């Protein structure tokens, strides 16, 4: 066996962190934490068979190498082979036909800007997902009328966050829920209780729940292991793009066009500016390609190809930083 090679499956990709590394199984959405020393071994493993690999470490790691490789084979992360050249690495080149992939729309009233016009423009640009954040109690029937343009559109999913209102009949929300299959998530925030009304063992579809949490224009994002996206599309996009900001557009409650709601820069107002013009501006797209590998702290993190963060990126002395740091420290490998 030792003259054989050990190969990880092409969708099981090691990622080095400052104090711990990962094998990301981007086909099955699994991760396997590994010591950095093992990451180095797996790197050398690409050109050496098992015997050569053990020799390279003077026989001191024989037991560990055998045990880990057997474990990987048992867990379906890799396999033994005599012909490693027949199993090339996965091509991680990423491209998308959509000019905009997702959007955040903030609504305070129905007068500040035309919601149906905004949705129509997003549809024309191929936008797949839209998050609607309603900040106040508004006439849901009138708002629903603005969504007529969504029926039969290219838009694939719409999430709706609205404030809890005890006076809103539940039937009205069900009407929203059943309006179109694209409405995949309805969350009522500022509720008196945490309650899941509909949940079907998946993340995006058929989710309808109440939460005590609040929402505002300055709401911060949360980071945790279960919020990361381990899949081929995201992992490939993250190689050269910022997976939070790339091809995203946000409209605040006044109609101002931004990369994301919490960012300071605005790029015109939706009332007099076409989204198609904004997304051609170099300044608007400047951080689309600033992936986590280019950002200080994130570049030391083993989750850098799966962490979706929309935080503003600042540049100081030719280095990129996130305006707000997350609660994971890659130096200590600890969550705060």
């Amino acid at each position, binding site marked *: 066996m030792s003259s054989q090679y050990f190969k990880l499956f092409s969708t099981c990709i090691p990622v080095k962190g400052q104090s711990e590394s990962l094998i990301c199984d981007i086909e*099955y959405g699994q991760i396997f*934490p590994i010591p950095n020393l093992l990451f180095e071994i797996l790197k050398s493993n690409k050109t050496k068979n098992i015997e050569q690999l053990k020799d390279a470490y003077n026989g001191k790691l024989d037991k560990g190498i055998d*045990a880990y490789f057997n*474990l990987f084979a048992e867990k379906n992360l890799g396999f033994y082979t005599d012909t490693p050249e027949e199993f090339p690495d996965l091509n991680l080149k990423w491209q998308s036909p959509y000019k905009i992939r997702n959007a955040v729309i903030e609504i305070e009233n129905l007068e500040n800007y035309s919601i149906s016009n905004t949705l129509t423009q997003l549809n024309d640009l191929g936008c797949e997902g839209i998050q609607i954040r309603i900040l106040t109690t508004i006439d849901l029937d009138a708002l629903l009328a603005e969504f007529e343009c969504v029926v039969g559109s290219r838009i694939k999913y719409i999430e709706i966050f609205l404030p809890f209102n005890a006076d809103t009949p539940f039937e009205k929300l069900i009407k929203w829920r059943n309006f179109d299959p694209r409405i995949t998530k309805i969350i009522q925030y500022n509720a008196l209780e945490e309650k899941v009304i509909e949940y079907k063992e998946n993340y995006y579809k058929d989710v309808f729940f109440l939460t005590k949490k609040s929402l505002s224009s300055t709401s911060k994002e949360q980071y945790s292991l279960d919020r990361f*996206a381990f899949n081929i599309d995201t992992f490939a996009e993250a190689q050269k793009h910022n997976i939070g900001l790339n091809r995203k557009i946000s409209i605040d409650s006044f109609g101002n066009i931004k990369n994301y709601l919490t960012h300071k820069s605005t790029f015109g107002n939706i009332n007099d500016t076409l989204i198609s013009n904004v997304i051609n501006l170099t300044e608007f797209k400047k951080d689309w390609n600033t992936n986590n590998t280019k950002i200080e702290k994130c570049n030391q993190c083993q989750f850098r190809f799966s962490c979706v963060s929309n935080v503003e990126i600042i540049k100081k002395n030719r280095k990129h930083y996130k305006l707000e740091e997350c609660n994971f420290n890659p130096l200590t490998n600890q969550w705060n």
Partner: protein
Amino acid sequence: MNNTKTINKTKLLSKKLEKYFPINYSLTQSPPLIRVRNIMSESQFHNDNGYLVGVISKPISNIF
């Protein structure tokens, strides 16, 4: 001086090796395989004919 450096380096390496590859290695000491949310495979959209028409690969934002 050089010898001391080499010895220290070797000691450091040995410590690392002990931590990650204990002599009495047991598979139970290995880190667990963690199943995380695989948004793409769990969020597939099918049309009325049952054909896959789209998937969601990542959250738009992690607010809730």
